Structure formats: C-alpha cells, structure tokens
C-alpha cells in the first residue's frame, strides 16, 4: 500500500486522536477557538493572503442530510444555533485508500445536549419580570436573559450519530491544516424524552 511515508504503526492512534479532536471541537463553546477548527477543513484558510497559492477545493460538509455551503457557514451555524453538546466516541474504523492520498473514517458516537434552556453563550429565553407582576414579589425581577455562562449544564439523554470523514493522508505526518476533505454527520437515533426537537 502507498502510505506516502506515513507511520503505519501509529495510524490507528493518530486516526482516533484526530476524530476525538473533531468531536472535541464540536463540543467547544469557546468562540475564540472556532478558527482552530476551521483550519482543519480543506479550502478554509482564514489567514489567506493576496498572492498565496490557490486554495484547495472546499470541504464537503453534509450534516443530517443537508449540504453546507462551506466550513465557515457550518461552524458559524453550529456555534450560534446549537446548544452545548457532549460527544462520546463509541466505534471507529478507517481505511487508507491506496493511491488516493486519502483516508476514509467511519465513526459512531453518542451526543447529548445541554437542556438547561441556555445557548452556548449561557443566555436563556427568560424575560424581565415587571415589578409587582404575578410571582415576581419584587425579588426576582429583571433577571433577563443574561445568565452566567458558567452555570452548570443540564445534560439530556443521548442521541446516536454516524460520522464519516475523508481525510488527507497528511494527517499521518502531523500536518492537520486542511486535511478534512469531507464530513458527513447524521443523527441515527433519538431518545423520545429529550427536550431537543430534531
């Protein structure tokens, strides 16, 4: 097989570490780390400068059967519109495709969502209570939706996911930049007692 100099003995470990890294990025609520995640995707160079070589084709991202226009659009949506998550890898297999310079990874995992009613920034949907209104008693007013982001999450039950990654073989040479050629992520089962509407 053509591994292009990759260390084959380390491949399983590197593959698993990389997939865990992707899941950890999905779980990271810190917006400032978004660029670190973005840099893993092919064709997404947030630091590109004029005159630089043409970027690689953009990574294909298909999430729940829906294609995202590019990695930035997907990550922005994920960060702004999905509550905090917690992924746990349950199975992983991969094949290095000879002659293609690519690796196909097939992972299954479970994911649970923060069901505390707060988004990733810790903001909830509560509205200020006018003084004297029912139940306010004047002690609970103006709570607003600026709850502390560090409040404890309330994890819901687990959903099942299936995730496929097509990676560049450079990942085995400790080069993570732009190695994700494609990402498909599909929720395959859901618990009926979750507060999250899928």
């Amino acid at each position, binding site marked *: 097989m053509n591994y292009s100099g990759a260390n084959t003995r380390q491949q*399983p470990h590197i*593959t*698993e570490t990389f997939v865990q890294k992707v899941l950890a990025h999905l779980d990271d609520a810190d917006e400032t780390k978004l660029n670190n995640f973005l840099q893993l995707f092919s064709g997404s160079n947030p630091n590109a400068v004029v005159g630089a070589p043409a970027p690689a084709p953009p990574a*294909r991202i*298909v999430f*729940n*059967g*829906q294609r995202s226009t590019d990695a930035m659009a997907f990550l922005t*949506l994920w960060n702004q519109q*999905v*509550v905090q998550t917690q992924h746990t890898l*349950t*199975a*992983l*297999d*991969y*094949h290095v*495709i*000879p*002659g*293609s*310079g*690519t690796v*196909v990874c097939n992972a*299954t995992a*479970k994911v649970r969502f923060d*069901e505390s*009613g*707060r*988004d990733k920034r810790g903001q*909830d*949907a*509560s*509205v200020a209570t006018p003084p004297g209104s*029912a*139940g*306010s*008693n004047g002690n*609970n007013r103006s*709570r607003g939706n600026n709850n502390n982001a560090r409040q404890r999450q309330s994890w819901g*039950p687990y*959903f*099942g996911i*299936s995730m*496929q990654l*097509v990676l560049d073989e450079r990942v085995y040479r400790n080069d993570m930049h732009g190695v994700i050629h*494609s990402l*498909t992520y*599909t*929720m*395959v*089962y*859901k*618990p*009926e007692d*979750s*507060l*999250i*509407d*899928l």
Partner: protein
Amino acid sequence: MSFHNANSIAAAAAAQQQGQRVRIAVHNWQNATMQDLLNFVSRNARVGLTEPKVEGAVLMAYAPSRDQAMDVLKWNGANFAGNKLRFEIVGDPNGPNNGSGGSTVEFLRQVLLSRYDPQARMLNLGSLAQDPMMVQKGMFNSPSTQARMFPALLKVASREPQLQSVQSVNLADNGLRDITTIGSLAQTFPDLRNLCLANNQIGRLNALEAWKNKFKHLRELLMTNNQVTGNSMYRSEMMRIFPKLAILDNVMVRDAQRLDAIFTFPLKLQQFHFDNDQLAQTSTQFVTNFLNCWDSPNRCAQLLPLYTPQSQFSVCADTSVPPSTARDADQNPAFGFYVPHSRNINKVSSEKTLEQRLATGQEQIATAFRQLPASRHALQQDPQGYAMQTIEYPQVNGFMVVLHGYFEETAKPELEQQSSSSGNKYNNRGRRNNNSHSNNPASNRLSKKSFDRTWVVVPMNGSFIIASDILVVRTYTGNTWSEPAPVPVPTPVAAPVPGGIAPGGIAPGGIAPVPGANVPIAAAIPAGALPPTLQLPPDVAARLTPIQLDLLTKLHLQTKLNAEYTYMLAEQSGWNYDNAVKGFQASAGNLPPNAFVQ
C-alpha cells in the same frame, strides 16, 4: 385498571396497600434465557419478578404489587433479544379482563367526552366536585374515593382515541393540595401546551416537582389563587420544572421564539442527500443491487468481482446500548457474530489485531463475508427505514455512499469462528482478543441490527470497483428520519388490482451502472423528471422516497399502467418490484382499459 363504583375504588386501593402480588405473563422472550429476562426486568423496570415458571412459550411470574406490575407493563414492546416483549397481567382480580367495572369506565368516559371541546382541543376538568353526574355517582363521597377518581379518570382518558389531540387541560377548582392524584397527567397528555390549576390549594413549592421536564411542550400555566404563588421562588421554580414555559399566570416569563431557537435543532434531518442528480441515480442503483446480492445465498460469488486486490473491507461492532427511550431500542443486543472480527479501534488497541482484521483483496474479503451472518435488508419494502448520503470523491474519480438502516439476521455465518483451521491468515487472527461473545449462545442469537455502511466506489468500464467497504453494525433502534407512519394512499377510483401478489424475494440483479437509463431519483431531481405519463399529485410525490419513485417509474414503464394504478400496484406488492410485476402479470387481463396510459 377498572372500577365498578366508588366502593370498588376503595377496595382496589386497599388491595394495593396490602401489597398483593400480581401474576404476569411474558411473551416473546424465548431468544434469551429466563435469567436474562429477569435481569432485564430488574434492570429496567426496577421490579424483581418472583416464582418464574415457563408454561409453553410463556413465562409466568409474580410482581410484588400491582403498582410494580404496572411498572413492568410499561416495558411492553421493548426490544429484547430481537423480539418485542409483551407483558400482561393475568388472574388479577383488579385486572381489566375480569368483567367488572365496565360501567364505571364507560361512565368516566362519558364524563370526559362531555367535557371535551374538540375545536379548542381543551379538556375541561374544572370543578368536578360540582358536577351533578359525578356527585350522583358518589365520586366525592369521601377523600379516599375522590383521591382514586382522578387517576381512574386519567387512565380512561389515556385510552380514549378522541382525546389524543388534547392541548389544554383545565383542573381549576378541584381542591388540589398537590399533584399526587393527577401526576399521571404527564403520561396521559405529554404534549400538553396549556394547563390551568387555578383556584386550588397548592401551597408547597415542590408540589409540582414530579412533573419536572415531563411536559416538554407546556407553554402556559395558570396557578392563580394558590398559596404557592406568593413564594419568592415561585416563578423561577415553575420555569425550572417546565423548561418551555413561556406564560405563567398571564405574564410572559420567556420569549417563545427564543425558546424555539434554543430547543430546536437547526439542521432538520433529510433522509437523502446526493451531490448531484447523476450520483443519485447511480448510487441508488448501486446500493439496491449490492444489497440484493449481499442478502442472496451466494453473496460472495455475486459481489467479489466488484473488489480488486487492493480493495478493503472491514466490519466494526458498536456494542453500545442506546437509551431505552430511543424508539424500539434493543436493550439486550447480541454481537457474538461480530466482535471476534470487529475492527473498532475505539475498543481494539492491538495494532497487529487491527491489521489482521482488515480484509484486503478478494480472498480475504470472501472469508470475511462468510464470517458474517446471512441477512435480509428491507430497502424496497420499507424504504423509510433507510437514509443515504452520496458525495463525490474526486481523489478516486468516484463517489462515497453512506447508507444507514437495518437488517434482519437470517442465518448463522457460513464460516463459524471455530472452523478457521485452513491456515488462512484472516481466519486465524485475533483469537486472543475473542471474548465471551464468540462462544456464548445468548450472544450468538440471530436478531435485528442497525448499521451504517460506507462504500468508496469507482465507476469503471461500465461497472463498479469498490475501493473501500466499511460495515458498522450497531444495536437496533428506530431511526430519526422517519416516524412509524404508513405511506398515505391516494383515493382509488376503481377496484384494486385483483389477484394475489405472490410472496418472493428480490431477484438478484447484476451490478452495473446504467448510464442514461430513464430512472429518476426523486429527492435530487425535480418532479418534472418523472416520465410525462406518470403524473403523481405533488403532495403524494413529495412524500415518496427516491427509492419508491424509482420503483414507480420502473413499474410504470414496464406495465404502462397510469399513475394511480401504478401506485396501487406498488403499494399492494409491498414496494417490491418483482412481486409487483408478478401481480401485474397475474391480473393484467382483468384490469379496465382506463387503468392504462391512454
């Protein structure tokens, strides 16, 4: 539970309090051992069944009390060892089958229906103590009978089809001090949106704690004229208990739109994705034909030509058990046929084992195929059970197909684990990593499994080459992309196609792409791509899967039946092309002329 009158309610209550044991019959458990079953019930229902005894195909046992028996009955339909468990209470004097209490049930049913406004979807159970019918029946003769009345009423409500769409319940003016007697409201109407508990005597802040997160859609709660509303923590506690509450006592406490944004996942599931129309057609045909061959008795002979000396195949077992609240989740899965061959690098750390469990080239792949159970997929009979994504894979000038779904294991592997004495490297490997899964009869039973399968496919010389094939086998669960609802059928204008549809499998077809074939795949193709003579109503077409539309198109072109009859034929044949063609051939002579395209 059924009640004859107020006295029998009290008697039933007394019987419960005495802890009278209840006999339970268990059906569909035989794929596992009796101890497996008892452990399952103990683990999930938290009930220890005693004096188990096998009577034919049924296991009889006792639950310590009626309440605990009811806890066991909640697991009716749970997947266990490949079957759906069925529990029933037998020989129970308070059971529904003893013939008593029917009149009380009917009485309560009439009370419920008389208080239901179907247009407003509102069930008004307010001021029940003032209801002349209830008073006359003696339902409020004593606190004891009153306490038993609400659970009985809600139980009857849960069985009444007309009340399944209730969105609002009024329980005002009922002298309630807490929710002890109406706790089951959350099970009876879990999708409730509006609840009124005004003018009761609820005083404690934690009185509603048992309902925490139980009403997932409750938007409005009215609690005025209850002492608890004066508590300084009242508002925040109600918001905690009801996470989607937007209006409390006529005051907005949450922004409903923002609530929806937080609790609604933004990326709605779509059953199919294809990068382009051509891939939709090609990959659907590939998958359909591949699985036909995979399920056939000569799996290897038909499929091996698609693999080259560099092709790779591996199986990966995800043995994790989904939560019991996932629809139809098997809580006692068996992976004995897969674990000895599984290349799950999340579980197997030995590099040598991982290398050995990767089958490369036709010979090893053939062996690997024969080490897996025979199976039956239901791609055409139950297309809602499958989801698929196909994306281009430019690095191999091909594409990657990902299929999610399920299969039934129909026979044990052709090659058992013990038979690996041929010296084949693939057969002999990983022995030290085999655990009890490999020899334990309970873990080697045949059952239904969910799976994800990923193929990297290269079209070549009018056929396909499979560069990579990863099969992930996991515990069976219902899927996320479909609800267990039948496909709607258009109203027929003539009698259905006469003649029975002969049962039979899908004839194995050759694997070959059909460039230019007139087989549109719906999800990725506009409706206009259907043959002009196959005009389906837009709402019907929108509900069909690409595979169903593919089948309709093939049938239409083959039979020349009009759209309506083509649909009926497909429906009657269980969406099986071969069965449909046989049915058509058997009954074509009896069809009216207007059944065909004019």
